[in-house]
């Protein structure tokens, strides 16, 4: 019998369950696993897979006061949790940001494609995303959005603008 099941959460397709035992089932599994691997290599598939370890490194390095030698505030557990949720909610297919610990204890996400193609979203554990973007010499945007479960469309649009 040929049986192949995907996990329920499409963000975390990281393994398939092969309950079949036939040659066909094994072939399908191999093809599927190969396709997932290819997808992972070509797209931002599971942002947490890529950014999770970096986020953990940041909290380890920046959880105490003065972590930057210039009196920086510590990054708190609530900021860490919110950063985790932000990464988890990044839409599939968006390029991955670089993580930036900030002196006031916030965590920033930076998408940068060179001069005048930059967007930064910063969170601080209070349900607010502060953002700033530079898309040309005099083309800039900045402001705040509420972060509750989903990343606001305005933030997604600005990230996409960096790669247009």
């Amino acid at each position, binding site marked *: 019998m040929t049986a192949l099941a995907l996990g329920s959460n499409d963000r975390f397709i990281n393994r398939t369950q092969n309950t079949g035992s036939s040659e066909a089932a094994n072939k399908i599994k191999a093809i599927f696993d190969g396709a997932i691997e290819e997808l992972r290599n070509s797209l931002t598939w599971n942002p947490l897979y890529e950014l999770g370890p970096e986020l953990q490194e940041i909290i380890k390095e920046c959880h105490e006061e003065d972590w930057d*030698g210039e*009196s920086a505030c510590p990054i708190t557990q609530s900021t860490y949790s919110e950063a985790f949720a932000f990464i988890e909610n990044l839409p599939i297919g968006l390029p991955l940001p670089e993580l930036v610990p900030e002196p*006031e204890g916030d965590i920033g996400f930076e998408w940068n494609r060179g001069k005048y193609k930059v967007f930064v979203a910063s969170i601080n554990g209070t349900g607010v995303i502060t953002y*700033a973007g530079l898309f040309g010499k005099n083309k*800039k945007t*900045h402001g705040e959005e509420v972060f509750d479960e989903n990343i606001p469309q305005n933030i997604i649009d600005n990230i996409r603008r960096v790669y247009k």
Partner: protein
Amino acid sequence: MRIFLKILSTIFEGFINNKDHITDISPDENITRYIFNKKKGYSEVNRRVKYGAYLPAPDGNASVYRTSKISEKEIWDIGHKYVEKKRKDKKKIKARADIKAADIYEQSLSIIPDTTPHKLHANITNWPEEKDKRLMKAVELANSSQLVIKG
């Protein structure tokens, strides 16, 4: 009287000689910000300064040095003696961001000389209260900067 004039002249001469450290910083001057933390300050792969390098400390200042009139070696020496050695965590300078004072003024920020611990030390001040505006200015400063990684 002659002694009094000599004392006065010595004081006045000292004032003149130190003039360039207490007057306004010219837009043409090179300004350097030392970077210790790679995640906060720069991207090695893309050879660029990150906005985090310029975000001010909680006291509202971003500490910088005026580096127009000194050599490359002196720039690193100042960083080593007056910035690196002052740190409790013994972290080393990894890179620096160089920028023209004009690019800082363009963001309506000020550069105020603060000759402690060194006569070329200054602070970028006058950051706005609102976080989004601070972020925007830090992004613009990073965009105008040159990254120099320590060899």
